[in-house]
């Protein structure tokens, strides 16, 4: 699998897009989606909520497990992906596209995220 070059990645397997008008998009990686198996339920932060980098902001359930969702960035949630709430399988079928999770007005740019190549090496290890 290939991790898009324009995204940055957390060690908790979330991705973060570059900010457009100060707003970035968050999702989980294909590696994470594959490891989880079929995602059946997602709980996302509410619009307007403040998220903190490295802290829990939601939940992903698959057939076999439940995992915490960590925010890779600090800021205010501006939008959540209602499509993925209604059809969690989008996380598996299009983790970098239609399966995005939420958007954040970035309060502080995170310093410790990985590049695509760094994440590819990290997730292979």
């Amino acid at each position, binding site marked *: 699998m290939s991790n898009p070059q324009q995204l940055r990645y957390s060690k908790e397997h*979330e991705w973060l897009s570059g900010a457009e008008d100060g707003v970035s998009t968050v999702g989980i990686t294909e590696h994470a989606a594959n490891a989880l198996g079929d995602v059946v339920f997602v709980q996302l932060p509410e619009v307007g909520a403040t998220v903190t980098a490295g802290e829990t902001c939601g939940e992903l359930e698959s057939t076999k497990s439940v995992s*915490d969702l*960590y925010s890779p960035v600090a800021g205010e949630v501006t939008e959540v992906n209602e499509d993925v709430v209604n059809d969690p399988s989008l996380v598996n079928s299009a983790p970098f596209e239609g399966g995005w999770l939420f958007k954040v007005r970035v309060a502080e740019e995170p310093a410790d995220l990985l590049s695509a190549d760094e994440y590819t090496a990290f997730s292979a290890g």
Partner: protein
Amino acid sequence: MGRNDLARHALGDDRPMSSNDPSQKRRTALDALHRSLGATMTDFAGWDMPLRYGSERDEHNAVRTKAGLFDLSHMGEITVTGPQAADFLNFALVGNIASVGVGRARYTMICQADGGILDDLIVYRLGETEAGSSHYMVVANAGNAQIVLDALVERVVGFDAVVRDDRDAYALLAVQGPESPGILKSLTDADLDGLKYYAGLPGTVAGVPALIARTGYTGEDGFELFVKPEDAVELWQALTKAGEGVGLVPCGLSCRDTLRLEAGMPLYGHELTTSLTPFDAGLGRVVKFEKAGDFVGRAALREAVENLNHEPPRVLVGLVAEGRRVPRAGYPVVADGQVIGEVTSGAPSPTLGKPIAMAYVDAEHSAPGTAGVGVDIRGSHEPYEVVALPFYKRQK
């Protein structure tokens, strides 16, 4: 997403594994084939087994509507032979094994002297010689095979019977689903129409000698094929080819778990443990007090039956979610803010399209339709409907 979450492909099997060292994990005869098919592997009772090949939901649905092919070589086969094999198994197990006809199989249990369940088993009566010596195969769960073997070896003392560890003598492939009879028929001359549910006969499948059994753990019609490990790859490939046109797919243990859960079948370590008797698990019918002679657990199980009347135990029920959050093993079942039971198995049900669970609950909350029952899902009380088991029963 935490790293540990990714590493934790929980099958809910909490029993100690034989080793955490990957080099010590046991691999089946089909291991290389699973890897070439891109399987996600998981540790199950010390074995490295396929969890899923692609989407576990698709694999589940294939078994319900078409057919699925499983590697179950981790299951533990124990052969029992001898003139007193039947008497011995009647003493060692709770069922009436002597009454099983040649070519038939029986679902049964092995209990401790205190009545606690050591394992649930399928016993096949494979043959009988003119001299009156019987031949049985006992199939135990992978995680309990050594415990069952040890118990049988201990209990056989004094009987003219031999207990043999045949765990390495067999690979086990299962073909399950409505298309499975057609697939198998194309590969064997064996009389499958005459082979009833819970029967087994020796035969040849795709040129490979096999014990063909009409058993399974999915709630569908299907077959389990016990073969020599060296024949496993050839048989897998023949079955795959024979199933190509009718939608057969390789299936992992993940969908096996959701299939058995929908079918209301217990899993050792979840619905069955050493601290429960067969009566506690609602499976008292497997205990045959009427059989001749003593058996291990008889006195304690007799007492357990008498206690049922004045001290109703928790009852195993089905729960169906009204919401979408999935109950997991160990989550408390609640009513009016009080804990009234515990979930033993839970999963999103592909067939029902909702999360389902099996749970032990206090008797007064166990009737189907009981109002106000919920599951405490990480602090949030989610409403659940109490239903009778199973969740799914195939149309015959």
